[in-house]
């Protein structure tokens, strides 16, 4: 559309495959719904109100693993891929390597996610059959048909190679336009480039090493690094890269400080991968490595502070926009939550805190604030901004968009506070040597609050889905200027 004015710039339609972006978003929302239902099932089980207890294929423990994997690989990965198909071609002014490859990756990734879920749910049911034991003794592998025994890496061992290949293809598809572009690279592209390398390496390390290469305590160190890098080197750089892209576009002003952008990227790149072992403090992993992980965790908190300051500097003087521009509000609310989780992390990683809160619900609250309160909320913001463009209609109801925001933002914060407090109680119950049941009954009231907080978040998401459906079914309408603040080309 700008081709008449600036003939040198490619047309938006030649760069971005909007249909693919929309498909990725729909897949992401599907798995988000599955994941939230799984979370609800586990929450009900903990308060002993699960009406489906005793049904093998609805086992809460199996669905607990579907809950986390559907979020990481079904929701976040799909949503990020959709966003990248929008952002990278527009940043580099070049399309991705191949449309056919893009569609192949899309289908392959859905195959991976569905197989992961199916493996986790059905695998254990077939575990006792004789052919499993025979194959295992033949190939000397553990042959757990269902989940693999690495947290966040429960992807069954038989689907790991496909996922690894998929990640390679993703990197090739997106790196092609990045490598071809000339001139200085924008901050987002630093994060994206690094993320493609890191995700590929991290996935390979976590899913193959503890299974085939090294067991025991050293395998635990790999597992810890994997849990950590999956959040820090896959989700975090993609999330921040998208913030560096969308925030300046919507605010129509540049990022406040280029220097701080550099500090943020290089600080994350150096300190984040060094922290894995902080997930297993007080284990037989050598103590000096535990200290190293603790120190770099505290260091990364300082880096995070510079990034958050940079974004606050960007919006400084224009705070009014938070009231009317919903995507911006999603983004900045997520950043505040990000600062809170990282600050919390710098405290809880110390050995003093670890004594009390390790193994408790404190950590569960922390994880929910990171994965939902930060990255999912950023994605909701991006979806709120992009869906009207992708389907050519303004949102059916601004009010439903608002409800989605408030239910999600308040719900996850209630869950975070509630589980944090529960963790402190549990820690003291355990240290007091009270019988174990005391800690379980003492947690009940917290778990009830948690279930309601989860329901609140889920209702917000349902509002979003209903709104999306009504928007899609409704007539083509002009975009709301509040949401539509960007020109066709960034």
């Amino acid at each position: 559309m700008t081709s008449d004015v600036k003939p040198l710039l490619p047309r938006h339609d030649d760069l971005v495959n909007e249909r693919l972006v929309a498909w990725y978003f729909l897949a992401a929302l599907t798995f988000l719904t599955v994941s939230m239902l799984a979370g609800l099932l586990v929450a009900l089980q903990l308060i002993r109100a699960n009406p489906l207890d005793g049904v093998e294929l609805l086992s809460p423990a199996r669905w607990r693993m579907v809950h986390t994997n559907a979020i990481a690989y079904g929701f976040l990965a799909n949503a990020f891929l959709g966003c990248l198909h929008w952002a990278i071609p527009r940043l580099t002014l070049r399309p991705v390597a191949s449309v056919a490859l893009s569609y192949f990756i899309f289908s392959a990734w859905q195959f991976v996610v569905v197989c992961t879920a199916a493996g986790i749910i059905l695998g254990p049911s077939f575990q006792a059959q004789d052919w499993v034991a025979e194959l295992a003794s033949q190939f000397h592998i553990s042959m757990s048909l269902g989940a693999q025994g690495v947290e966040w890496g429960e992807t069954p061992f038989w689907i790991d190679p496909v996922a690894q290949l998929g990640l390679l293809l993703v990197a090739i598809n997106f790196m092609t336009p990045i490598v071809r572009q000339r001139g200085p690279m924008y901050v987002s592209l630093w994060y994206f480039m690094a993320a493609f390398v890191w995700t590929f390496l991290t996935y390979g390390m976590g899913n193959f090493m503890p299974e085939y290469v090294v067991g025991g305590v050293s395998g635990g160190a790999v597992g810890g690094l994997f849990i950590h890098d999956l959040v820090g080197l896959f989700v975090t750089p993609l999330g921040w890269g998208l913030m560096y892209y969308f925030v300046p576009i919507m605010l129509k002003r540049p990022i406040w400080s280029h220097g701080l952008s550099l500090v943020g990227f290089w600080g994350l790149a150096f300190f984040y991968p060094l922290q894995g072992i902080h997930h297993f403090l007080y284990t037989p992993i050598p103590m000096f490595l535990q200290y190293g992980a603790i120190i770099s965790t505290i260091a990364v908190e300082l880096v995070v502070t510079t990034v958050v300051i940079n974004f606050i500097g960007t919006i400084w003087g224009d705070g009014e926009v938070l009231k009317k521009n919903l995507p911006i509000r999603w983004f900045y609310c997520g950043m505040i939550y990000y600062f809170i989780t990282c600050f919390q992390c710098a405290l809880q990683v110390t050995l003093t805190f670890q004594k009390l809160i390790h193994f408790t619900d404190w950590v569960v609250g922390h994880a929910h604030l990171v994965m939902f309160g930060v990255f999912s909320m950023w994605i909701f913001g991006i979806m709120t901004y992009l869906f009207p463009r992708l389907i050519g209609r303004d949102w059916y109801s601004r009010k439903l968009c608002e409800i989605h925001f408030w239910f999600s933002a308040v719900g996850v914060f209630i869950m975070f506070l509630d589980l944090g407090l529960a963790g402190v109680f549990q820690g003291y119950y355990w240290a007091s040597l009270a019988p174990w049941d005391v800690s379980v009954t003492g947690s009940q009231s917290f778990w009830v609050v948690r279930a309601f907080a989860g329901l609140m978040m889920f209702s917000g998401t349902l509002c979003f889905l209903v709104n999306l459906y009504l928007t899609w079914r409704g007539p083509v309408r002009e975009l709301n200027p509040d949401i539509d603040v960007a020109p066709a080309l960034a």
Partner: protein
Amino acid sequence: MFESKAGILGIAGIGFFLFAFISNVWTPILMYKDVTEKTVEEVVNYRVMAHFGDLNRRYPEAFKEAFGEPTEENCAAALRLGRQLYIGEGCWHCHSQFVRPVSNESKRWGPVSTAEEYQNELQRPVMFGTRRVGPDLSHEAGRRSSDWHAVHFFDPPLVSPDSPMPKYTWFFDGAPNKPNKRGLAIITYLQWLGTSLDSYPYYEQVNADAEEDY
């Protein structure tokens, strides 16, 4: 360098990742390389064999159908299957397998975990766990009888009234006194955890008076 493609790919993407990998992964591997990893057959001991034989006496028909005779070889097969179920059924997301040197854990659960306990095939991948909704299981063997475990798996509140643990009725053929192959395997696995230690069997030490305080 800080904004070039080569710098970002080479230094941040690969360089820093490798640095972290060498320091956080390669170092412990080198440090523990002389502690050999035992096979499942090597960790079968007379203590777990006693439990395995006990299962054979309690549930003879089911045992015969699932494992035949209570030999060491069949015990190893049961341990392998038991551990696979421990992973596949997600037990490790609510039960830990490591005792920390803090918070009175060694009083409650037994001796603090050491690296040697984890150097065997049944700890690949290691089952440290990250959440304790239920008790730590690293020294579970011998603490409770196998028929207690059977009833507990079938319907946890029957023996542990406040337990939020789900039912695992699919480990049985309809009744708690009829465990199937999966049930027998997971009980064997539980009755193995901690059998290599001098402290076996370690009973949980709790302050019974504390219950009245809460």
